[in-house]
């Protein structure tokens, strides 16, 4: 019964998307308001129907309905309840349904806004967003249906379909296979939803942009309306990437957080264009420039979102993320080709209407620096995109399979990231329209001198790695310049008011949330950079087989192997856990317990690290192997990851900054209303 509720609501949601598009087109022809209202209501109805469909699937997952193929694939009896819920996005068809539901949520919220002043653009926004949604629901209905039942015929052949095949009865396995062990981690509760929210969120600004292109609007209305949507999508995407890094660090057991895996890069690419877009729209809002460029960026971001989904789900590239692969690749390819080429055609058609009103006056200007910033983002994107698709290119043209691993990405993107970091330090000090080197020098000399203290201190401590010194200096420079910007602003405010410094600082941020929220994001990026520099340039690792009470040394630490225990679990795991005592400079610190989980049903092993964390470094210990208990020997792999925790601290600051920048501001609303009324 529940299966059919889920299926029928999914089917109805598909019908509603088609109707919504039809009604929007009808409004364009007739200009009768009833059609656009009906279209909008229909879009909201899609959300209601998809909510019911998702709830049905969650019910089936949590109540062990193993007669449903998807349930039998991603759950089993021993799995805890929270993992049964997260199994909604643990497989291809469920995650597609969840994806559609999230997208419908965004669209429904968009539909609830007051469209009175944007009636011309509304039907196009609905059409574009609903076409995207329709594509995903269609995949769910016709290719990856999560409500398919298992059937067994008289010859004991098991098949799956929604409708009963002739001479078959429902087949209910005693237990399911269960979720991929890699996905049985608390991080999986939140990482995929964040990433999906980031991905689908970009559909809204894209829809507005295409709407603006179709009606040939020359103003910045679509940018102002979608600014917050873009920030929200970007925030979720950033969070998704960050949580993905944390998940990899905790689960994959290779001592790192980012492996330049194709699917990681697939999620990173829209983030790059989205970040470039967020910077570039500021210029359009303030200077009426870069209109064409912003259109290109949002079209690229949308295309990369779909491309990323295609890469993850088609199995066209090998990846550690290949949890959800199927034969939907060709359809995705057609959809990407169609949507991208249509967007480009519309852009070409509206090219002249997007003429920039003001010329770029000088490279030594805020907008000039933003342009260089955008070029660097595009440079990194090109390197990432090319590296991701190159294995396919190689196979097509040379017949050779190849691997493009981290060395390529690190060499091609590293210098560009460093240049971006430098720009982050300089750009906030440069004035709009035109500035001078002398003026910049006057503003930057103090932060520069302070920032040089860090590399000097490191040199005195014996650090000789030039790249590391240069990178850390850059990070410190950005940190000092950003703090200096806060200080300058608060001081200026204090001088013109009766507030004390702290009050001035608070008011400064409160009254300029977007600017200072952005600066806080920059501070977050600085901390993340410090963490990355730490692990990339100073990571130490060692692997050794030792007997009981023997030790392994790494850095200032010494780890003594104490014991090994084998612990069968009730949830289908067999855990082998080692205990090691950590000593720092011969002083006992704590015990650490790396373990190996063996999932009996899946016959899969997971090496789970245990980590001793401080802000200075992480001591990351893996149990690699062990000899039978009587020989009492075990092999451990140990990483010393300096400064890694600054990545997560920076991530938190990043989120806080984005929230501040995205927080609703009455003044923005007033400007928007005034724009709409003209």
């Amino acid at each position, binding site marked *: 019964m529940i299966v059919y509720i889920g299926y029928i609501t999914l089917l109805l949601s598909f019908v509603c998307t088609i109707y919504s598009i039809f009604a929007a087109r009808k409004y364009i022809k007739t200009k009768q308001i009833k059609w656009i209202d009906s279209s909008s209501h229909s879009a909201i109805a899609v959300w209601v129907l998809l909510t019911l469909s998702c709830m049905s699937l969650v019910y089936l997952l949590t109540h062990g309905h193993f007669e449903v193929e998807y349930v039998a694939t991603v759950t089993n009896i021993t799995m805890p309840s929270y993992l049964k819920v997260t199994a909604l996005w643990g497989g291809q068809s469920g995650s597609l349904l969840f994806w559609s539901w999230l997208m419908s949520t965004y669209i429904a919220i968009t539909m609830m806004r007051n469209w009175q002043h944007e009636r011309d653009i509304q039907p196009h926004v609905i059409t574009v967003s609903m076409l995207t949604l329709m594509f995903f629901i269609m995949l769910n209905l016709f290719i990856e249906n999560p409500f398919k039942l298992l059937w067994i015929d008289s010859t004991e052949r098991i098949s799956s379909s929604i409708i009963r095949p002739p001479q078959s009865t429902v087949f209910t396995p005693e237990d399911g296979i269960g979720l991929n062990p890699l996905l049985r981690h608390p991080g999986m509760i939140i990482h995929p939803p964040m990433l999906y929210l980031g991905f689908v969120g970009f559909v809204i600004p894209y829809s507005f942009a295409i709407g603006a292109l179709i009606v040939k609007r020359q103003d910045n209305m679509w940018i102002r309306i979608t600014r917050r949507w873009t920030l929200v999508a970007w925030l979720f995407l950033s969070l998704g990437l960050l949580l993905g890094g944390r998940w990899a660090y905790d689960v994959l*057991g*290779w*001592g790192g957080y980012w492996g330049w*895996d194709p699917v990681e890069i697939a999620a990173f690419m829209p983030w790059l264009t989205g970040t470039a877009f967020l910077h570039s729209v500021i210029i359009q809002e*303030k*200077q*009426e420039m870069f209109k064409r460029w912003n259109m290109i960026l949002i079209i690229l971001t949308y295309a990369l979102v779909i491309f990323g989904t295609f890469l993850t789900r088609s199995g066209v590239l090998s*990846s*550690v993320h*290949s949890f959800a692969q199927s034969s939907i690749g060709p359809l995705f390819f057609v959809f990407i080709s169609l949507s991208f080429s249509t967007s480009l055609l519309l852009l070409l058609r509206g090219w002249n209407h997007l003429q920039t009103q003001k*010329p*770029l*006056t*000088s*490279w030594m200007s805020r907008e*000039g620096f933003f*342009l*260089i910033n955008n*070029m660097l983002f*595009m*440079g990194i994107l*090109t*390197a990432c995109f*090319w590296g991701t698709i*190159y294995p396919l*290119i*190689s196979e097509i*043209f*040379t017949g*050779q*399979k*190849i*691997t*493009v*691993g*981290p*060395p*390529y990405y690190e060499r*091609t993107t590293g210098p*560009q990231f460093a240049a971006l970091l430098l720009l982050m330090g300089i750009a906030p000090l440069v*004035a*709009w*329209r*035109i500035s*001078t080197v002398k*003026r910049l020098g006057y503003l930057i000399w103090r932060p520069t001198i302070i920032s040089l203290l860090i590399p000097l201190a490191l040199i005195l401590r014996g650090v000789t790695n030039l790249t590391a010194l240069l990178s850390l200096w850059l990070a410190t420079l950005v940190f000092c310049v950003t703090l200096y910007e806060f200080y300058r602003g608060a001081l200026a405010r204090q001088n013109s008011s009766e507030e004390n410094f702290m009050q001035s600082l608070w008011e400064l941020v409160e009254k300029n949330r977007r600017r200072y929220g952005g600066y806080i994001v920059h501070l977050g990026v600085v901390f993340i950079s410090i963490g990355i520099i730490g692990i990339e340039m100073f990571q130490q*690792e*060692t*692997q*050794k*087989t030792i007997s009981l009470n023997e030790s392994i040394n790494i850095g200032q630490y010494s780890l003594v192997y104490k014991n090994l225990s084998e612990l069968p679990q009730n949830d289908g795991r067999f855990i082998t856990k080692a205990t090691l005592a950590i000593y720092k400079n011969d002083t006992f610190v704590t015990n650490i317990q790396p373990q190996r989980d063996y999932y009996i049903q899946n016959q899969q092993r997971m*090496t789970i690290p245990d980590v001793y964390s401080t802000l200075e470094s992480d001591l990351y210990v893996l149990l*690699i192997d062990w000899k039978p208990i009587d020989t009492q020997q075990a092999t451990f*792999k140990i990483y010393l990851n300096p400064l890694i925790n600054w990545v997560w601290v920076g991530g938190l600051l990043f989120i806080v900054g984005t929230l501040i920048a995205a927080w609703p501001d*009455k*003044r923005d609303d*007033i*400007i928007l209303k*005034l724009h709409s009324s*003209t």
Partner: protein
Amino acid sequence: MKILQKALGIILILFFSNTNIVLSMDHIPTDDEINNISKDLYCPVCENIPLDACGTQACIQWRNTIGQLLSEGWSPDEIKTHFATQYGIQVLSEPPKTGFHALLWLLPLACLLTGLFILIKTFSSKKPSEHEHPSENKRHTNLNDYHINQIEKDLQQWK
């Protein structure tokens, strides 16, 4: 005399090279030495996981082979080449920088240079007009005076 010198040289080379072989035969490679090579190799079966981090039986076997080859005195480069010859260049973490695969490295560089060229062209074709002066945070807005006054009024009410 010269012949003697040459002969002595050859004897010394042979002596030391032989010593090296004997030493390397005795050398039991550490896990760290094996991992140093393993992290630059990918087995063709496991998906995008370097050999040093992969726990499959095939990868464990490969690491044993690396250990064996190291103990026989092979250099890291020779070992990588050996695996590439045996299983194809896909086992290397990066393809060779020669021939067709040079494209992998050249294209991003070419794109970056093109971007730089476009930027330079853009900047050089837009000279600052005479009425533009260096100014700090000069505000430009497309709102007219009426709108600005309206915003100011609303802000006053809001305060």
